[in-house]
């Protein structure tokens, strides 16, 4: 049976993890490779590395880092942040990334999804959508969730699939950072109108939230950052709890 995936996300700046990390058994918490290895040992099913560097130098460092990650890590990983062209993707995939995640650049120029899917195959194209509510309607946000657009989230999700996205990473801006659970209704709706894997993101505060999102929606994976970094919800324990509830996990 296909398992539900648990995906820790690491924010990277100038080749180092930025969000505070609180692991007792790690030598250098700022080293993304060290942290990634801990997650693999704990049973993470996949990893996401998000480059939040804004400089050209930082980007180069990130590509080098992707090479190191690929050497050390034996599970799939996605990289994202600031990707806007076929050339960017080529570099990252050649360095050893399994998938790339695109966000604002796809909103700005949707054909990018098509170009990437044709060149590299849709299995490695993740379209990330930041969803926020504007006057009660779910709208697409860009620029790290800072800028609202008038694009309807559901229409955009369908278009992204149509253009060749292999997977959708849906973050609810309403839930992100609240630790009050995932945006169940939003995720349920997106999952029902598309036929590609959906990763839920934003709002996880405890194991019960992961159980809830898998029990009440059809999403394939759930992603979180700080609760894993601070060992608030250790992955091993999370998976045990999900298993107890009859949710298929690895």
């Amino acid at each position, binding site marked *: 049976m*296909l398992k539900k995936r648990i995906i820790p996300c690491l924010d990277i700046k100038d080749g180092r993890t930025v969000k505070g990390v609180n692991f007792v058994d790690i030598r250098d918490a700022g080293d993304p490779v060290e942290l990634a290895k801990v997650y693999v040992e704990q049973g993470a099913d996949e990893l996401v590395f998000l480059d939040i560097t804004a400089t050209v130098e930082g980007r180069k460092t990130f590509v080098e880092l992707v090479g190191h990650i690929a050497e050390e890590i034996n599970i799939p990983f996605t990289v994202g942040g600031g990707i806007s062209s076929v050339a960017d993707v080529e570099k990252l995939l050649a360095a050893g990334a*399994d998938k790339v995640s695109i966000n604002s650049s796809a909103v700005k120029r949707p054909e990018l999804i098509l170009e990437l899917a044709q060149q590299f195959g*849709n299995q490695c194209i993740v379209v990330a959508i930041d969803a926020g509510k504007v006057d009660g309607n779910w709208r697409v946000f860009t620029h790290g969730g800072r800028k609202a657009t008038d694009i309807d989230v559901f229409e955009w999700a369908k278009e992204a699939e149509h253009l060749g996205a292999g997977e959708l990473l849906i973050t609810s801006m309403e839930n992100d950072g609240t630790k009050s659970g995932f945006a169940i209704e939003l995720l349920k709706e997106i999952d029902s109108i598309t036929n590609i894997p959906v990763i839920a993101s934003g709002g996880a505060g405890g194991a019960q939230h992961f159980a809830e999102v898998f029990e009440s929606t059809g999403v394939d994976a759930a992603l979180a950052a700080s609760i894993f970094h601070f060992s608030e919800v250790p992955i091993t324990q999370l998976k045990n709890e999900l298993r107890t509830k009859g949710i298929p996990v690895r």
Partner: protein
Amino acid sequence: MIAIVKYNAGNVRSVQNALHRLGVDAVVTDDPKQLREAEKVIFPGVGEASTAMRYLKERGLDEVLKNLHQPFLGICLGLQLMCKHSEEGDTECLGIFNENVKRFPTSKLKVPHMGWNNCSELKGALFASIDSSDDFYFVHSYYAELGSQTTAQCDYILPFSAALQKDNFHAVQFHPEKSAEIGQQLIKNFLEL
């Protein structure tokens, strides 16, 4: 020496990295002589079937590959190209295996089949120390049918060949190089053939 077949399909680097983690160096090559003389050959692949077959044929690699005698391991698209025919781009493949490759039918389950899944009916040395509760990482929209050469099956939408074998030719639909410890075990098993 281990040779990885060089062609226009992705993830060659991942396979090389996986071998390196096991302390084995591999050469990535499309040179027929080097492929024939290699101790073992790995045929990885992420990509589209008709484009990949065209690339192999243009270089005469199709004939080279199917006439190799050393242990050979196809991965993902590699497995599909070793079959008879693929619906992807209506492609005549290498024909090492009798099975055909089809697109997953429309169902309530999603395509691609992406993520960790376990296999059953495991046969042969490739699966030594691996059992049907172990999960491998899959990413594919096309599958090889079940047949007499199936050595592992996986069930997603329908039961399909997760692994095939004929003589020295082995192939797996999943990505052992991305399947954590279990995948590493399978690669180790292959290296020990």
